């Protein structure tokens, strides 16, 4: 194994560049160095103006998502040595506008996420004195997988539908709706279905499955979307047979 690898990194400064360019940096190639470690090396020792998001370095914060060799990845969990001898291409996540270098504009996702009301909705709130909402391990198991979403948006970068139709609410938002629907403490299924039954809700998805393939936390958004389609279809049939209010 050579002791260094070339990284080809997207650079773009609005107001200064008309379009993104590619800069090439040589970084040490070590067995335990991730793509993010390579970028941090560049920022600390080669070019301190390189801009990218990162925080926890352990796959929990979800902020270091980028396209590595064309594939959406958490750069903290993607190793340089898997791309040896290189070069390795690092670009901002696809399907999002670029703010600067490897930083993308996540405003659209931030606006969509609260639409599915990803929090516990109750008909009646217990007071603190009445104690906790008890849940069994089996009830936890029901939604646990979907609760692993870290909002890293790799699924949006991988989704060909979102790439064409930006009104599509997208994989992570639907997976999170399912996470709360499946929670035994929640009573908000009706409110979420009202949002997801619309055209830009679950029906946008043509089941490509890329979201599940790239998910670093094995959330399976594609599975959530299929389950939701079934709920929405049932609802449509019911609405036809028994119009609400009838």
């Amino acid at each position, binding site marked *: 194994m050579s002791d260094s690898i070339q990284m080809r990194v997207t650079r773009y*400064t609005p*107001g200064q560049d008309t379009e993104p360019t590619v800069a090439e940096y040589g970084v040490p190639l070590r067995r335990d160095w991730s793509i993010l470690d390579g970028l941090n090396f560049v*920022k600390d*020792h080669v070019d301190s103006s390189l*801009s990218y998001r990162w925080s926890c370095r*352990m*796959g929990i914060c979800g902020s270091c998502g980028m396209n590595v060799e064309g594939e959406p990845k958490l750069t903290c969990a993607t190793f340089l040595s898997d791309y040896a001898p290189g070069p390795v291409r690092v670009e901002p996540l696809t399907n999002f506008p670029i703010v600067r270098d490897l*930083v993308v504009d996540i405003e659209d996702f931030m606006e969509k996420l609260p639409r599915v009301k990803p929090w516990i909705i109750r008909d009646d709130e217990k007071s603190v004195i009445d104690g906790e909402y008890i849940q069994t391990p089996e009830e936890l198991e029901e939604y646990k997988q979907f609760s692993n979403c870290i909002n890293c948006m790799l699924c949006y970068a991988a989704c060909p539908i979102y790439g064409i139709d930006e009104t599509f609410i997208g994989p992570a938002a639907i997976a999170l709706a399912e996470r709360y629907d499946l929670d035994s403490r929640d009573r908000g299924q009706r409110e979420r279905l009202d949002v997801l039954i619309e055209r830009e809700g679950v029906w946008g998805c043509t089941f490509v499955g890329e979201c599940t393939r790239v998910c670093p936390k094995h959330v399976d958004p594609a599975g959530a979307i299929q389950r939701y389609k079934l709920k929405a279809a049932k609802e449509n049939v019911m609405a036809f047979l028994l119009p609400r209010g009838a």
Partner: protein
Amino acid sequence: MAWRWPIEQVPFTGILITEATRAEGGWLLNKDGYRYLQDYDLGKPEPTPVLRSMELGPRDRLSQAFVHEVEKGRTIESPYGPIVHLDLRHLGAELIDTKLPMVRELCMAYERIDPVKELIPVRPVVHYMMGGVHTDINGATPIDGLFAAGETACVTINGANRLGSNSLPECLVFGARAGKAAAEYAASAKPPPSVVIRQADDEAQRLDRMLSADRGTEQIADIREEMQSTMEDSAGIFRSGDSLTKGIDLLAELQQRLGRVQLSDQTRVFNTELVAALELANMLDVAECTLHSALQREESRGAHQRTDFPTRDDARFLNHALTYRDSDGSTRIERSPVTITRWPPGERVYGR
């Protein structure tokens, strides 16, 4: 201010391997494969975990034992400094996968180590600061309109050594209280007086100067790395009057050099270099507070262990240290009382 040092962190990335690994029966081994904790008054090695004994001793005592192993030359050299090994292999794949799934996932995904078959290299890493911005139980600081909660605050619930898992409840409880108090303050506050507005203008001008001026040739990463090694050498797991005094002098030099940092990024869009420069300035201030208060605290308590004052001294130091910067730039420490409610400080005994 005292900093918390858990032992089970992997070097370089500093990922924390949960203390639950020790609770489930993980062993800490030195370079000879020896469970070295038995040499530090932490009990006898048994095949299965024993409460308050050996690997189930408290994190500060385990970190201190690590330092002694380094001094004896019984640790393992790595590219990131001395390490010991956390051994989970005898627990078997089934227990690790059911009780410690995150540990195996983290080791595999971020370190390329399979704890079922391999030893995990670990060393103590600073993980949490017990001190912080002085607040009341509603997150209010002595400065009107400034609220703080979580690790950045010091609401004094943690004492000199935070217990495991208490940082999340701290955020939830005091974050909610501070949020409510801040909202109430904002709803009723009068417009800021002109002196505050002038201060804000000065601050904006300072940021402008950082972005444009030709200040020198210092690099942020160099100063940050030197600050880290200064703090580890002078106020690490063990401190002394000598190490702290030396550290204070080195930090003063770094403060000087900070004024000569040149930003190569002078844009105003997502300028992470500017953020890094501002963070570095804040970290240097916190580092200075830590060293000055540690120097004046001539005793050992919790995560603050002085080799020259190895015992606790409640008569002089059962109190909080408040750090002030005077107008001439010097640091002044004042003390405020500790209110003991249910649990007075006692002797900590393990393995016996």
